């Protein structure tokens, strides 16, 4: 276990450091997320009476699409700079690589979401923030990152990788999207505690399943 923790933290730290110095992902993804909210505002003409119903959906579309951008970067940078081979040569297990990348992506997404959420609350004008919502966001983002890390490792090797990632990723994470939207809706106030707990449970179950399967197959696809 100790042998896994240190490489994972170091790998995630490497990605974070790179990001802190370039601010490539966070800035571009942030602008993109705000644009999604703006476009939705015009597309749906959100009125104060509907905001509780519509806001969770808009929020998760913004998070999911912004997340895709962040995931894409995780391996694209490694591939384009030829450092992927270097990573593979590291004397650490494939699991460590997977969880390191997962942690990096997870933290990027959380950072983006932490900035997007207040912007979103202001622009759509709803009383949003609660501990329940934060927990739902945390679990759903973990699920996104778990599946996204695996698929971005696949997509990066394919032609037209920008389109391959969403094509692979979205069908599989449909349950997370549903559960995330419903849990957020319940947390914001349109549903009860029972419902909230139920959706949170599904999110937890999804995370658990994919945190077992994804590292297992990740090792298989990276073999050269």
């Amino acid at each position: 276990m100790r042998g896994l923790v240190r490489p994972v933290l170091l790998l995630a730290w490497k990605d974070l450091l790179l990001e802190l110095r370039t601010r490539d992902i966070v800035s571009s993804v942030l602008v993109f997320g705000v644009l999604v909210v703006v476009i939705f505002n015009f597309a749906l003409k959100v009125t104060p009476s509907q905001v509780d119903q519509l806001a969770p959906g808009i929020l998760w579309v913004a998070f999911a699409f912004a997340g895709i951008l962040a995931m894409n970067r995780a391996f694209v940078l490694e591939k384009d700079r030829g450092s992927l081979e270097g990573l593979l040569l590291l004397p650490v297990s494939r699991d460590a690589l997977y969880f390191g990348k997962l942690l990096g992506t997870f933290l990027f997404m959380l950072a983006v979401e932490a900035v997007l959420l207040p912007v979103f609350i202001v622009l759509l004008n709803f009383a949003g923030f609660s501990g329940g919502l934060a927990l739902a966001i945390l679990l759903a983002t973990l699920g996104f990152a778990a599946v996204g890390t695996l698929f971005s490792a696949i997509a990066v090797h394919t032609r037209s990788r920008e389109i391959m990632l969403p094509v692979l990723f979205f069908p599989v994470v449909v349950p997370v999207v549903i559960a995330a939207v419903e849990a957020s809706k319940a947390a914001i106030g349109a549903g009860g505690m029972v419902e909230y707990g139920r959706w949170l449970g599904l999110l937890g179950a999804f995370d658990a399943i994919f945190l077992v399967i994804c590292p297992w197959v990740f090792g298989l696809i990276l073999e050269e």
Partner: protein
Amino acid sequence: MERAESKPHVETAEDRARAGYNRLSNALLVASGVAMLLNLYLIFIYAPLDATQGQVYRALFVHVPLAWISFLAFGITFVGSVMYLWKGSRRWDALALSSAEIGVLFTTLVLVTGVFWAKPIWGTWWQWEPRLTTTLILWLIYVAYLMVRSYAPNPRQGARYAAVIGIIGLIDVPIVYFSVEWWRSVHFPHVVGPLADEGTLPASMRSVLMFSLITFTLLFAYLLRERLALKRTEDALKDLRDTVESKQ
């Protein structure tokens, strides 16, 4: 290379195996062809008119067997994918790919027949109901399965990536199903699908359905064998080309 030097009239074990394979495929072709004609007669002439749905319900005899067999096809893809990742043999990959292609074809037909059946019965082309939604997601996953192969840098990596999707895709199906079921029950009453009264299907209709299932299973077996043979030829051709190129 050795084949070209051997005398043409000598029948090798490989030739015999191939001839046997083709004979069985041809037998399946004839059997599924005859069964299909009989099936059409049973569906359109023998099966009685439905009291509530009239003629439209006859879609059931195509729609339901295709749906069942597409699940079978994706099950085979799952097994082929697991075995390919485990053993690394190209035969397992060929099985997974062939089955997935036919599965996507059959699922497409399920969705199309379903849409045209739903319109006169439910009044809408589509319902975001668990079974329908799961079928659509399943279709999307296996389209991605086929796409990742053609977008991969080389066939070997494509096979590997596809196998991963073949495994995760099938594991995802029950999760999608339950999440949509929960989601639906929160917002809308359950849609009573035309299949909800399956238990009360009259005996004559039930036997037509069973016959149709057998017919489409024969068709599936035939298509699978043909696709496998085609894949084998493709691989052999590719190997031959690689050998020639490496000699030059």
